[in-house]
């Protein structure tokens, strides 16, 4: 079966695949982080790794890893297994759902200052 190619910006109507069809998973190329006017500040010491923010994130910008050594978090306990990692700011739109849903107030929304990045 034939393949479909990615589209280069500025391509003409004769160059692009018909009907707007694209390869799968091209949204990875779309860095929605540029939409952001607020940025989540995550405090690992307050995090219970409950995964609520991971599931609520509309752009799946919160990565996880499996770690049996564990790390210290909320109430100085050691959390093992699936752990939340730092938010991927390439995709985080700054919507604030994670901060709203966090049961341990480990995430605070701050005004984005693009100079810092």
């Amino acid at each position, binding site marked *: 079966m*034939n393949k479909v190619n990615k*589209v280069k910006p500025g391509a003409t*109507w004769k160059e*692009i695949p*018909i009907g*707007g*069809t694209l390869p799968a998973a091209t949204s990875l190329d779309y860095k929605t982080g540029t939409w952001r006017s607020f940025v989540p500040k995550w405090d690992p010491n307050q995090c219970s790794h409950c995964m609520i923010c991971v599931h609520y994130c509309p752009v799946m910008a919160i990565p996880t890893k499996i770690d049996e050594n564990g790390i210290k978090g909320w109430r100085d306990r050691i959390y093992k297994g699936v752990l939340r990692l730092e938010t991927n700011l390439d995709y985080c739109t700054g919507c604030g759902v994670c901060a709203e849903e966090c049961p341990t107030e480990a995430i605070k929304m701050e005004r984005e200052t693009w100079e810092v990045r």
Partner: protein
Amino acid sequence: MSVNIKSKKIPLTGAEAVAEAMRQIKPDVVAAYPITPQTPIVEIFSKYAADGLVETEVVTPESEHSAISIVTAASAAGARAMSASASQGLALMVEVLPATSGLRLPVVMAIANRALSAPINIHCDHSDMMAVRDLGWIQIFSENAQEAYDNMFLAVRLSEHPDVLLPSMVGLDGFIISHGVEIVEIYDDELMHNFVGERKPNLTLFDFENPITIGPLQLTDFYFETKRQEQEAMKNALKIYLEIGKELSKITGKDYPYFESYKLEDAEYAIAVMGSTAGTAKDAVDELREEGYKVGLFKPKLFRPFPYDDVREALKNLKGIGVLDRAYSFGAYAPLYTDIRNALYDLDKRIPIQSYIYGLGGRDIFKHQIKNVFMELIEGKYTKEEKCIGLRE
């Protein structure tokens, strides 16, 4: 012209003839919702599926909106998908129709042309297909059951051609064709199936080695380019329609032009009309010819894409034209009249042309009324307003 192939001539309604065509085409998926006068098409086809004559997945959803969504999605998955509808059913499909064409999916539908509500009416006019004429679907109108049968095969091949990849609708006048019994020449199953062959999709959702995204967002950056491609596909369809017609001719011995020109070569006055009324008009032409009038009939079959250059060439020597539309375009010139008038703009001379509206909601049109139209053309009774045939003034 006689062609030595297997065929049988049997009495069928237009709906039965279309269902026969679908049986021979062997679509992978058919989804439709019953609506008068389309119902017998899918009813008969469902029976074929239930009896094991076809291996089609027949889906009976809760609405036409779902029916067209199902066939669009099935087509995206690589299936040959077909449906059928009419009137309000087609109107309910409208949200999805430009998605089918925009995604370039070769769905084929038979439309048993019926008046749009309100007032509610189940009889024939062309207001349903005319309402969706700008949505990127190829539109072919049929004069009788035989043409409806033949057009189904043309439509499948045209839609699935790699330079076209646009959906098609084949119009047959509700009740007049869909329920009227005529002798229809049905060609050999294998021959007709081989004519359409199997669908060979370029890309499908079911190709798991090469996963694709269908229907992604295109904003100010690419939407325009994608729509330009669609227009190009319509232009290609114009050329390819004739090529496929020539192939079909080898089986049927008939010609498949953009339009039928009946006694038009030396005609001075002509009527343009689509669908079943063309049959009545031919009788009117014959009788007037016997009386010595040089009159002819111009019957468009392929309405979208509209073959402007060929229409102009066919009509350029006339002294007067009457265009009969079976639909209003409210607040504007009637649809067929608009296109024919546009086609003639590029002529150096100006041919008098008169718009007529007829047959709305299934109102009968008689031979004497068509002869009267010819006499008005001959007597030079042209107005800028459209005239109505058979309306109580």
